[in-house]
């Protein structure tokens, strides 16, 4: 008797300029009906590739797939969809120019006659599904205008809309905050109770322990372990994922904050009709990690963009050290040591169609030693890229492979490599460990703590509350464009307290924003 889903001996090799990349090498997975199955593995292990094959988006080179006892050929996405297989993609499959509802129904639009889209029906259907999941979304907003967290919900909604019986979630919680993760996990349990089967990819150990029944672990394209979750501990799980022991707690030494490196004074930013940032002031001092906590879409993104010079503030001033930078260009600010890891790694952080070396030098190609009298020194460029590949452990065989062909975690590493190697004084890090496996996330924490030790400053925007708790010296909580709380380590802060401020249930009076 075969399992509900069996993928055996799956191989997939990509070729880049003659170099073979084995993404999957005889990978196997067996999933039982009505269970939640965790798919684990370090960055670049082949998780997304295996699932894309199951969703009919990539073609396998070898191997067999049995679904409900039948051998199936999955040549395109509609074949998989017809069998009832749906996938929430790691890098969203959404069209920015379309509205939420248009994205949700894309490919399976309800029609009235002659292929004319039945807008009313579409609206009703989508609203119904959104309500069922408890997602609050403006269904008529263009996806391009949404935050990453909101887009993640659209992506999930999109899959639920087609009501598949086997659902694949590829790192669905990377950009969601605690409460949102809670509600997603609830939705997943609900789906399970309805008899659906779920394959769940995540690097977050707690989630895996909480919702999966069984796990399969991939390493370098091969299946290395598989088993029932309730026999595992967090340590064992991490060990299975990366093949070695990683301490989970982050050591942070006490240290006194130095002089002010960045100051924001009465910043107001307007986005269209709404006031996205409302009279925000704060300062960041040398040797600090300061977190901005807030539910997605409460103005943190606009605030960051104003500080970086991507967005013109309505009023207010920004100082780097004692120099005002409010009217400088982004490049000028960058040259002064202001660096940025954006949350949207695909559209803002990197250029998928440029190669790895180009992505690394994009902020410095015009300066020596990369350029002399307007001529690029390509050899130096590739040498530098090679150095980064080793130092940041980027899984890329060549420096001229396109960044779009890297796995999600390795794209993230490429961006981090570029930003850290720019030697920033101030690093604005948005979801910096998004999609990183446990070991690499640990490495990034070490890098950030090292920056802190070197009297630099990190402004940390993260939806991961544990990350905030273990790294930040201070927390600014933003709600509806206003800083509603300023929590310093001394007074101590709890998860619950931050959560209450984030949701706007509570607000501090007379916030003091300087550190003594």
């Amino acid at each position: 008797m075969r399992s509900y889903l069996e993928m055996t001996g799956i191989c997939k090799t990509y070729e880049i300029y003659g170099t073979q990349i084995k993404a999957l090498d005889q990978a196997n997975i067996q999933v039982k009906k009505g269970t939640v199955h965790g798919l684990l593995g370090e960055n670049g292990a082949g998780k997304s590739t295996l699932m894309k094959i199951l969703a009919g988006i990539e073609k396998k080179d070898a191997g067999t797939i049995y679904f409900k006892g039948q051998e199936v050929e999955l040549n395109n996405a509609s074949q998989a969809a017809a069998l009832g297989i749906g996938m929430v993609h790691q890098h969203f499959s959404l069209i920015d120019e379309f509205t939420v509802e248009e994205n949700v129904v894309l490919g399976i639009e309800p029609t009235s006659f002659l292929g004319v889209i039945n807008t009313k029906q579409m609206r009703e259907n989508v609203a119904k599904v959104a309500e069922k999941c408890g997602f609050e979304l403006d269904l008529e907003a263009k996806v391009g205008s949404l935050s990453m967290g909101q887009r993640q919900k659209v992506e999930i909604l999109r899959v639920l809309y087609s009501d598949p019986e086997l659902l694949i979630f590829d790192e669905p919680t990377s950009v969601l905050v605690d409460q949102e993760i809670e509600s997603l996990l609830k939705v997943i349990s609900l789906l399970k109770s309805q008899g659906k089967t779920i394959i769940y990819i995540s690097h977050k150990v707690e989630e895996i322990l909480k919702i999966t029944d069984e796990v399969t672990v991939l390493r370098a394209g091969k299946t290395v372990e598989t088993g029932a979750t309730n026999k595992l501990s967090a340590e064992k799980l991490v060990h299975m994922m990366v093949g070695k022991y990683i301490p989970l707690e982050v050591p942070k030494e006490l240290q006194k904050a130095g002089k002010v490196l960045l100051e924001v004074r009465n910043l107001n930013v307007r986005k269209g009709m709404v006031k996205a940032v409302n009279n925000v002031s704060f300062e960041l001092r040398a040797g600090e990690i300061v977190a901005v906590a807030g539910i997605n879409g409460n103005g943190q993104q606009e605030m960051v963009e104003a500080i970086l010079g991507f967005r013109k503030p309505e009023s207010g001033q920004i100082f780097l050290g004692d120099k005002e930078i409010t009217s400088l260009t982004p490049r000028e600010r960058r040259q002064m040591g202001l660096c940025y890891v954006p949350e949207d790694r695909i559209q803002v952080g990197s250029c998928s169609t440029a190669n790895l070396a180009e992505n690394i030098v994009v902020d410095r190609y015009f300066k020596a030693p990369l350029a002399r009298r307007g001529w690029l020194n390509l050899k130096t460029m590739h040498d530098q890229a090679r150095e980064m590949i080793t130092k940041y452990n980027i899984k890329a065989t060549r420096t001229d492979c396109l960044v779009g062909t890297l796995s999600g975690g390795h794209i993230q590493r490429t961006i981090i490599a570029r930003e850290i190697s720019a030697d920033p004084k101030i690093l604005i890090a948005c979801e910096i460990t998004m999609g990183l496996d446990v070991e690499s996330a640990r490495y990034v924490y070490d890098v950030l703590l090292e920056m802190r030790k070197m009297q630099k400053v990190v402004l940390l925007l993260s939806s991961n509350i544990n990350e905030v708790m273990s790294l930040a010296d201070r927390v600014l909580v933003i709600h509806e464009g206003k800083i509603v709380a300023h929590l310093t380590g001394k007074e101590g802060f709890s998860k619950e307290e931050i959560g209450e401020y984030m949701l706007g249930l509570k607000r501090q009076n007379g916030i003091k924003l300087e550190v003594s």
Partner: protein
Amino acid sequence: MLYDQINSFLFTIIATSTPTLLASLGGLMTGLSGMFNVGLEGMMLVSAFFSVYTANATGSLILGLAAGVGINMLLGLVMVFIAEKLKADIFVVGIAANLLATGLTTFLGMWLLGLKGTLLFEKAPRLKLLDIPLLGDIPLLNGLLNGHHLIDYLGIVLAIVLYLVVFYTTYGRHLRAVGINPWVANARGISVDKVRYSSYLWCGFLCGLAGASLSLPIGAFMGGPIGMTNGRGWLAMAVVIVGQDNPLRILLVSWAFGAISALADIIQATTNFSPRLMMAFPFIGALLITALYSAGKGWGRSAANNG
């Protein structure tokens, strides 16, 4: 008197902008699929030749029209095939189509008729001006709306139909999705290839009508580098850009461009401005409009970002 003059001026605009309108609608469909066709000029030329040649050979207008349109649709399929399957850049394929069209029509003229330059097809039935009673009855506008060629009416009807297709049907939505992000479209089970082929079929069809609308009314064909298309295919590309992916806007923009050429004709006839310079007038006008439009759009975008 003034009324008559305005009326005849507007009438000319509708009549002369048809080829540009149809070609730009064709360009629009390919642009929406993400593979903008720069071979509009060539397509029109091919259809202008084959439609009038076939009409001459068979004595049938319908067959002539069908031949021009049919061969163009075939050409469109070949173009996508070369781009999608043989991995050539669609831009280069479009340029090649333009060069091929000039050469092919000249060669066929020599081979089939032994003539170069202007080819007269005396046996070809002419496309006649229509007298539609319903339109003729509308007061004030009757002079303007009535008495055009069949293809002129088709052009306007098609602009409206395409507007509905692009914005209100699944086909239109999939077409736009493929153009914006083929990867996403593919992941949703939309066949990117099919959509692209279909967009070139549309383009072939529309440019086919555009070409036929040049040669069938006069029963003649002018080949060579400055053939009877006379740069309309290039102008159409500007129309697509200014028309912002919207068929109805494209209709208005081609009328605006048509107005510029009509104005040029009037100036040429009534003043002693250099006629050569006047021939460049529509293109200079198009250039200015496109440049102003693009600058305006750039400004609009940065304002939207900051605002």
